[in-house]
């Protein structure tokens, strides 16, 4: 234990006042500088030395780690001296990363529908299970987009899994709007995510989800204005308005985010 902890024991003689009686003790010096004193229990040359410390504990030292072991005649009061351990490693008293409130900043990249997108994200995590995130990105068919997501997660040590729900707004390109599409497409996004905390600052997120177009009838219009006739069918999107909403779209996406955690 002591060797692992790189501990250095200092044996201090206390209360050595008047006693003149002496006792034999075994003093073991280790290669790492630690010094132990106690009553010899066992000495097996080329194998190990075992002593009983003043505090009552039994210590066994492998021969290879011993620099020197010898008996010494000391006053009895010294033989029952106090034992201090220096440099015992401080425990990591910092709370788990995910239990602390954070602000996050990161970059994200992924695939939405048939095309890739990338962007930046910022988040507020007042607790380990709640996050409000705002992202901005571009790519894909519809151009620049904003997304606002609320996430609820279950932290398990340095991993967190959960679900998110949010809204996003895509600017619709001119080739669509010129054919009657609305200038902004509104989406409702549902997703699952898994966070991995790397060290105490980095957070790697993997999420997958689906987007549902909220524009009533809007996507049907957009599909009519698609660049290629196969766009809608390639994405599995009906090209005729449904009777309920006038039109709908369903878009699968996945992304990876690498974020930096700021304590708040």
């Amino acid at each position, binding site marked *: 234990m002591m060797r*692992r902890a790189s501990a250095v024991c200092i044996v201090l003689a206390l209360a050595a006042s008047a006693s003149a009686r002496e006792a034999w003790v075994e003093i073991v010096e280790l290669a790492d500088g630690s010094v132990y004193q106690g009553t010899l229990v066992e000495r097996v040359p080329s194998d190990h030395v075992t002593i009983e410390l003043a*505090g*009552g*504990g039994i210590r066994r030292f492998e021969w290879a780690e011993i620099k020197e072991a010898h008996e010494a005649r000391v006053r009895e009061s010294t033989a029952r001296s106090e034992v*201090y*351990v220096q*440099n*015992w490693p401080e*425990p990591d008293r*910092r709370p788990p990363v995910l239990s602390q409130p954070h602000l996050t900043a990161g970059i994200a990249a992924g695939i939405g529908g048939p095309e890739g997108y990338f962007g930046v994200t910022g988040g507020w995590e007042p607790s380990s299970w709640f996050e409000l995130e705002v992202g901005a990105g571009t790519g894909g068919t519809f151009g620049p987009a904003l997304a606002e997501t609320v996430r609820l997660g279950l932290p398990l040590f340095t991993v967190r899994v959960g679900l998110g729900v949010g809204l996003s707004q895509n600017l619709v390109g001119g080739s669509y709007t010129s054919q009657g599409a609305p200038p902004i497409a509104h989406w409702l996004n549902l997703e699952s995510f898994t966070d991995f905390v790397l060290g105490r600052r980095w957070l790697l997120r993997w999420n997958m989800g689906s987007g549902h177009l909220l524009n009533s009838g809007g996507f049907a219009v957009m599909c009519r204005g698609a660049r290629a006739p196969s766009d809608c069918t390639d994405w599995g999107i009906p090209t005729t308005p449904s009777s309920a909403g006038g039109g709908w779209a369903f878009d699968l996406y996945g992304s990876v985010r690498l974020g930096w955690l700021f304590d708040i």
Partner: protein
Amino acid sequence: MALRHLSALAAALAAACGSSVAGSFQTIGPSSWRLAPDTCASGLHRGYLGVDLYRLDPDDDTELVIESGGVLARLPGRGLMVRLGTADCRVLDVDLHPNGVKVNGVPALAGSVTLDCERSELGRLTGQARFSCY
């Protein structure tokens, strides 16, 4: 087979729920302090048979290491641990045993400790705790 699966599931859940510790210690004397540990760690991760009790508080400087043969108590502000053994204690009751759960191959330790010990630089240390440490 079902029992085996249930045992594995229970072990996984126990590990997922993390370590637990309940109790408190206090000293009266040259260094008066109180430790109500909220965290414990199995010493087997660091190569010794024991548990480390402390608080998850960067401003706290108290710590007790419980071993079968004695206790190490941190002297706050001095960067030193003092060893307490049977010769120093009116009561040194340590129960330390594997609880059947392994995390990454390292056995978890559970048990309890009751102390009433005295050392010149530490003062009188009393208290008790029950723990289950991973």
